[in-house]
């Protein structure tokens, strides 16, 4: 049902500051590793130094004798995890994950082979250095390029087709190119950490970095075969994750095993090096695109192939070819998606996930086509503008991407762009402009909010959802303030614990749409309760505290569940973005300096302008890192990452970041949810890498198809 949405919130970069901002900048926000628990012990992992094979001997004696060491746990003495023993009826997250300490098999370098538990972290660390492991090595495979012939479709035949197969080949204007996105790591500032405390044989509490306390709760219950309600997962603050905390990882299971065995709580914090091997990454992906058009720039065909890394024990899938299916009105599209199983840790969704990988290829290829056709890249996009979903034929619930093009073009100064590469110069540097678009499904899933108004006039909102930094709490408070007609300062938001009402894992840009809807409806229900009391249904502001006092009530509360309606069947729902980038390039040295970014999000109604802007700026920065510098470099002879630290794995620093102009179309989607708000986290990054690559081409005439775009690839 179409909803009329009231747009009376600020739409500029002004707006309410983060409700937890002060806690975060003063250090009062408590992250998982910062909790203290009575009798706490400390665990340090020992990682495999081979990439494939078996452990033939593991000598733990020296470690066990070291001061303060309580236990050394390996596959030899570890308790058996029930969830690893029988596969029937278990969710795939549990079934397929690395069965840590279950046997002597090594399937990737850095795989945990032991954990040393001691009474201080330093002693555990030293103990870990004393564990000596002997291996029988087998030939490993870590290079996707070397093993691409072993690609396989993750489900079905991995193929998609509409219209004619490979129609691009018969087009008068066509481009066929290969693109590579390397392994990137999430590496949030906060290291992954867990404190596991068994309260009883079948009852456990964890303080854990996770994007989904409910999902973690269910995984732990399954793994240890205990009732779900006996698992308490707390994740009150998460210092960034970008996807790395979307699932349960081996180190979490290790902490749970260890705490059970030493009968004391165990804290386990990953090292920065562990963050490269043990908590996922954006998979190295090889892609090939063929794209064809008529002389007037109408697309006639797109063929998009992608081969992505996965581990040997789990099939990790994402959607790199999806953008080619849905971003443009093209009658003939066929895609192929394959995985290559390698001796690496399992990848996982990293911000923008597969769509960011796919958009780098598609939006680069389209840019190449624009030069061939001599049609402005924006004009080319407009000529192929999808008015309805090209994949399903359904109408879009809302789409204003064309307005976003115009806004972004104005903000970057697109009129200054020269169609001929290498012709615009300023102060001895080459100047270039590039564009890249993003799309991502606008999802919404079920969520429950408990809303409680107490006699002091304070409204408490409770739900399990994690807040990994996008400003979820802030947006929820603003939705409630709007509905209840009370100041945001009178609203509290409590989240990040599994004993709170159900909420989805924070991921896929779906939290505001999902949990926000529950807040919206909970507030309506709560207000109605008050109106029943007062017998007054006028929309006039209610003095809630006064009403409770009059009726001698301590509080009124509701628990409200919201789920997506059947509008999802009738409409195609997406968020869109367009990124414009201006670069300055030193032709001699190949150094690319981003001079300006203008990113425009078409993500429905903007609920929290300040945190939304922060999302877009963060996405652009992540995209700049992906475009120019991020790459986890492996020596395939050894299967080990060479740059597994923050000095050598480069993420963008302040000096790399120019003025980022974040803009919003800010028009509500009338179908997706009562606020008209769509997700923003992914689209803030998707398309950015292509925008940078396209700007570099416009500046220099150098087309870089393998990220990152480092000086050696650009220099004359």
């Amino acid at each position, binding site marked *: 049902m179409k909803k009329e949405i009231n747009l009376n919130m600020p739409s500029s970069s002004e707006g309410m500051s983060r409700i937890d901002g002060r806690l975060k900048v003063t250090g009062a926000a408590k992250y998982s590793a910062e909790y203290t628990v009575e009798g706490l012990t400390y665990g340090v992992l020992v990682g495999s130094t081979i990439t494939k094979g078996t452990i033939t001997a593991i000598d733990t004696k020296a470690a066990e004798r070291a001061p303060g060491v309580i236990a050394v746990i390996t596959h030899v003495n570890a308790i058996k995890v029930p969830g690893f023993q029988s596969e029937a009826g278990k969710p795939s997250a549990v079934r397929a994950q690395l069965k840590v300490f279950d046997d002597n098999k090594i399937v990737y370098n850095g795989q945990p082979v032991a954990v040393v538990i001691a009474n201080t972290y330093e002693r555990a660390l030293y103990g870990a250095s004393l564990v000596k492991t002997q291996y029988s090595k087998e030939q490993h495979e870590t290079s996707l390029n070397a093993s691409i012939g072993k690609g396989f479709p993750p489900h079905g035949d991995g193929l998609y087709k509409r219209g004619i197969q490979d129609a691009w080949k018969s087009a008068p204007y066509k481009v066929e190119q290969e693109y590579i996105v390397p392994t990137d790591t999430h590496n949030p500032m906060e290291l992954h950490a867990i404190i596991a405390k068994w309260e009883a044989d079948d009852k456990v509490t964890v303080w854990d970095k996770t994007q989904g306390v409910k999902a973690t709760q269910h995984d732990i219950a399954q793994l240890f075969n205990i009732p779900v309600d006996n698992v308490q997962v707390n994740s009150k603050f998460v210092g960034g994750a970008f996807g790395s905390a979307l699932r349960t990882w081996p180190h979490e299971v290790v902490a749970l095993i260890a705490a059970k065995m030493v009968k004391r709580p165990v804290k386990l914090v990953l090292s920065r090096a562990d963050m490269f091997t043990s908590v996922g990454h954006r998979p190295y992906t090889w892609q090939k695109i063929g794209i064809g058009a008529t002389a007037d720039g109408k697309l006639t065909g797109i063929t998009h192939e992608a081969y992505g890394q996965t581990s040997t024990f789990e099939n990790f899938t994402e959607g790199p070819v999806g953008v080619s299916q849905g971003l443009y009105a093209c009658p003939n599209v066929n895609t192929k998606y394959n995985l290559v199983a390698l001796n690496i840790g399992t990848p996982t969704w990293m911000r923008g996930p597969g769509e960011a990988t796919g958009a780098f290829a598609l939006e680069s290829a389209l840019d190449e086509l624009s030069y061939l056709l001599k049609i402005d890249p924006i004009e080319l996009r407009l000529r192929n503008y999808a008015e309805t979903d090209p994949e399903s034929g359904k109408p879009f619930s809302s789409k204003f991407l064309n307005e976003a093009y115009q806004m972004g073009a104005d903000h970057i100064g697109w009129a200054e762009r020269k169609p001929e590469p290498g012709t615009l110069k300023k102060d001895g540097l080459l100047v270039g402009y590039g564009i890249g678009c993003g799309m991502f499904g606008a999802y919404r899933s079920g969520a429950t909010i408990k809303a409680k108004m107490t006699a002091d006039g304070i409204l408490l909102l409770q739900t399990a959802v994690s807040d990994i930094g996008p400003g979820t709490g802030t947006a929820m408070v603003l939705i409630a303030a709007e509905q209840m007609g009370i100041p945001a300062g009178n609203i509290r938001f409590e989240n990040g614990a599994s004993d709170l009402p159900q909420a989805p894992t924070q991921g896929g840009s779906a939290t505001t749409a999902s949990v926000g809807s529950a807040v919206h409806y909970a507030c309506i229900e709560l207000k109605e309760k008050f109106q029943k009391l007062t017998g007054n249904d006028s929309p006039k502001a209610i003095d809630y505290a006064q009403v409770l006092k009059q009726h001698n009530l301590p509080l009124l509360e509701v628990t409200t569940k919201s789920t997506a309606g059947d509008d999802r069947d009738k409409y195609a729902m997406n968020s869109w973005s367009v990124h414009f980038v201006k670069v300055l390039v030193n032709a001699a040295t*190949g150094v690319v*300096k981003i001079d300006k970014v203008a990113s425009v999000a078409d993500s429905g109604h903007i609920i929290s302008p300040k945190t939304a802007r922060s999302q877009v700026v963060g996405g652009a920065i992540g995209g700049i890192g992906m475009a*120019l510098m991020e790459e986890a470099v492996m020596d395939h002879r050894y299967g080990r990452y*060479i740059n597994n630290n923050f000095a050598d794995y480069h993420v963008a620093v302040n*000096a790399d970041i120019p003025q980022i102009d974040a803009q919003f179309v800010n028009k509500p989607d009338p179908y997706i949810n009562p606020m008209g708000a769509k997700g923003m986290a992914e689209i803030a990054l998707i398309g950015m890498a292509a925008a940078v690559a396209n700007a570099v081409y416009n500046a220099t005439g150098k087309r870089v198809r393998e990220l990152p775009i480092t*000086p*050696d690839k650009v220099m*004359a």
Partner: protein
Amino acid sequence: MKQFQYICPTTQQGVLDVINKPGTKIIAGGTNLVDLMKRGVTAPDKLVDINHLPLKSIISTPKGLYIGALALNSAVAEHELVARQYPLLAMALKAGASPQLRNMATVGGNMMQRTRCGYFYDTTMPCNKRAPGSGCGAYEGVNRMHAIFGGSSQCIAVHPSDMCVALAALNAVVIIAGKKGERRLPFTDFHRLPGEHPEMDNHLAANELIVGVEIPNNHFAANSYYLKVRDRQSYAFALVSVAAALDIENGIIRHARLAMGGVAHKPWRLFDAEQALAGKPVSEDSFKQAAQLAMQGAKGYGQNAFKLKLAPATIAEALKHAAGLA
């Protein structure tokens, strides 16, 4: 954890008395050493903290500038004398590391930081520098950051300092104290090439202490430039860096100084190119010719072959900046 002794002598003699024992390391800012200890690359038995020695001064002398070994990188970079008379050094320092590291790192410590690479840091990997005889992981491996000059089959790591590149270009002299008194060593002779002994980065003996460096007076202040090409704009090692200093009179180069970073086991001084520039007019052509001359003997090892092209381009670019042509 591994137990080690930590002592803080208050006199230079007190330091010299204790450092000549195996397993002893001097610590000043600790920005490299502590890292190496945390990663298990080095495990000293005794740390001699020299921060109590009076070696922090930065003073003008009749011959030039004296900088104490314990002067902080940030203090030198911000010093008014350095900014005015030796801007090349200030620029190089500010291109190095991060502000936090420069606030801890000392001049002597900067010189003593290990020539290194990723294989040196990973104790499970072969590295002749860390474990002599274990092989060089980089030689046929991941070597994009590695040396194109002066490498050996034993080691192709590069010295990562920016400061040292400027000091090499400026003809600095290292003042070293030992049991028998002080000796003076040209800066360009302080660090060494790997040869058959990559475990040794420099010519400082185990019983010696760097007390300071001297930079002679020069006429380069008006035409100096430090250009660092790197993968990100701060806190990244150089792919190639160039310290360029010109003494120009009426459009003619009287003297030139050139040194490169990111290309060798030590700061790489380009004497031939300097000589070629002397007497030449200030022009892009002169610079390009000098840059080509500088590349004699350069060798790529695979991933770092791009440096054979990037290095001369960076030399020419740095000279352009130094001459005010850019």
